């Protein structure tokens, strides 16, 4: 079943669609990724999704790594590569061709309206991402406290978020969160 052409084909199609609706970047499609991989395809549980998201955030690189890990969980290394390429290729091609046209249109009123109109929708999607991830990850009150503390520190200070991740991992290793 794993690595079957049908599974890889399904991954390719689903992630190519996601690529073209990922307004606001990878964080905005986290709810849709969750819906696809947990609710529709049963590639993983809610908690496993939260764990993979944690690994993606703890690794260096763009936020889009969560797509790589969903592909990996669904179909191993081939799945990871198919998901990564499918998640990037359509939007990259669109960007490649749009970049030149954009120069000509950047002073126009409709270009500004599209940018200003998409912004609140993508913000709502990122809020939904945080909500769904908290739902999956915060299984008891100590973890809720970690989420809240991280949100406040990252929002209110210029501290590198990596320190929050390291502190939370350290608390877990010390057995404080168990």
């Amino acid at each position, binding site marked *: 079943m794993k690595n079957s052409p049908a599974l890889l084909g399904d991954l390719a199609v689903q992630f190519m669609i996601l690529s073209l609706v990922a307004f606001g970047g990878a964080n905005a499609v986290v709810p849709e990724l969750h819906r696809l991989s947990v609710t529709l395809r049963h590639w993983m549980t809610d908690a496993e999704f939260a764990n993979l998201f944690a690994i993606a*955030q703890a690794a260096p690189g763009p936020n889009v*790594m969560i797509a790589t890990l969903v592909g990996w969980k669904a179909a191993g290394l081939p799945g990871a*590569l198919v998901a990564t390429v499918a998640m990037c290729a359509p939007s990259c091609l669109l*960007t490649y061709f749009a970049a030149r046209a954009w120069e000509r249109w950047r002073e126009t009123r409709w270009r500004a309206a*599209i940018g200003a109109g998409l912004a*609140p929708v993508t913000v709502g999607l990122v809020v939904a991402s945080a909500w769904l991830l908290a739902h999956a990850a915060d299984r008891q009150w100590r973890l809720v406290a970690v989420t809240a503390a*991280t949100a406040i520190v990252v929002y209110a200070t210029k501290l590198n978020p990596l320190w929050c991740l390291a502190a939370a991992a350290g608390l877990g290793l010390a057995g404080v969160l168990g």
Partner: protein
Amino acid sequence: MNSDMQSSDFSQTDSPGAAALFLAFLGVGLSGFGGVLPFARRMLVERRAWLSETQFAETLALCQTLPGPNIVNVSVVVGSRFAGALGALAAVTGLMAAPVAIVLVLATLYGRYGAVGRLPEMIAGLGAAACGLVAATAAKMALPIVRKRPVTAAPFIVAAFVGVGLMRLPLVWVLAALAPLSIAAAWGRKG
């Protein structure tokens, strides 16, 4: 004519080839945790001076309007400006190669040892902190927009959250319903 002038402006300092683009974005991919945009800005504007501050801001605005991971789009625009399709491919590959390799090593370790000792608790802690990070990002994005356009923007933030977060509707439906209305609201406000 105008667009030709833009292109020459873009490459007035020096024109990196595909190899230089690959290496530069390789560094960006390796340096960023929890999002790499600040590192891309530092590399492109401050360290290599491939783009001016304004050019970077305009490139970012374009990439945020288009679908897809923003930083990946930035690498495509910069790569293609300096070295065409090959440059775009080199920049994207450079950006993605190392992070994909690293995240797969981590995932393999997680698959093999994720249930050993206190590692489940460590991963649970990481997961809790990771959603705090996303919540902070959401708040940072939301507040300026809500402050500037409480009437024309805030309802769309709430509607997108309710549709996707609470009702768990497919993203495509929510976008198809909300994006045209939200763009129309923004358009009406400008006039």
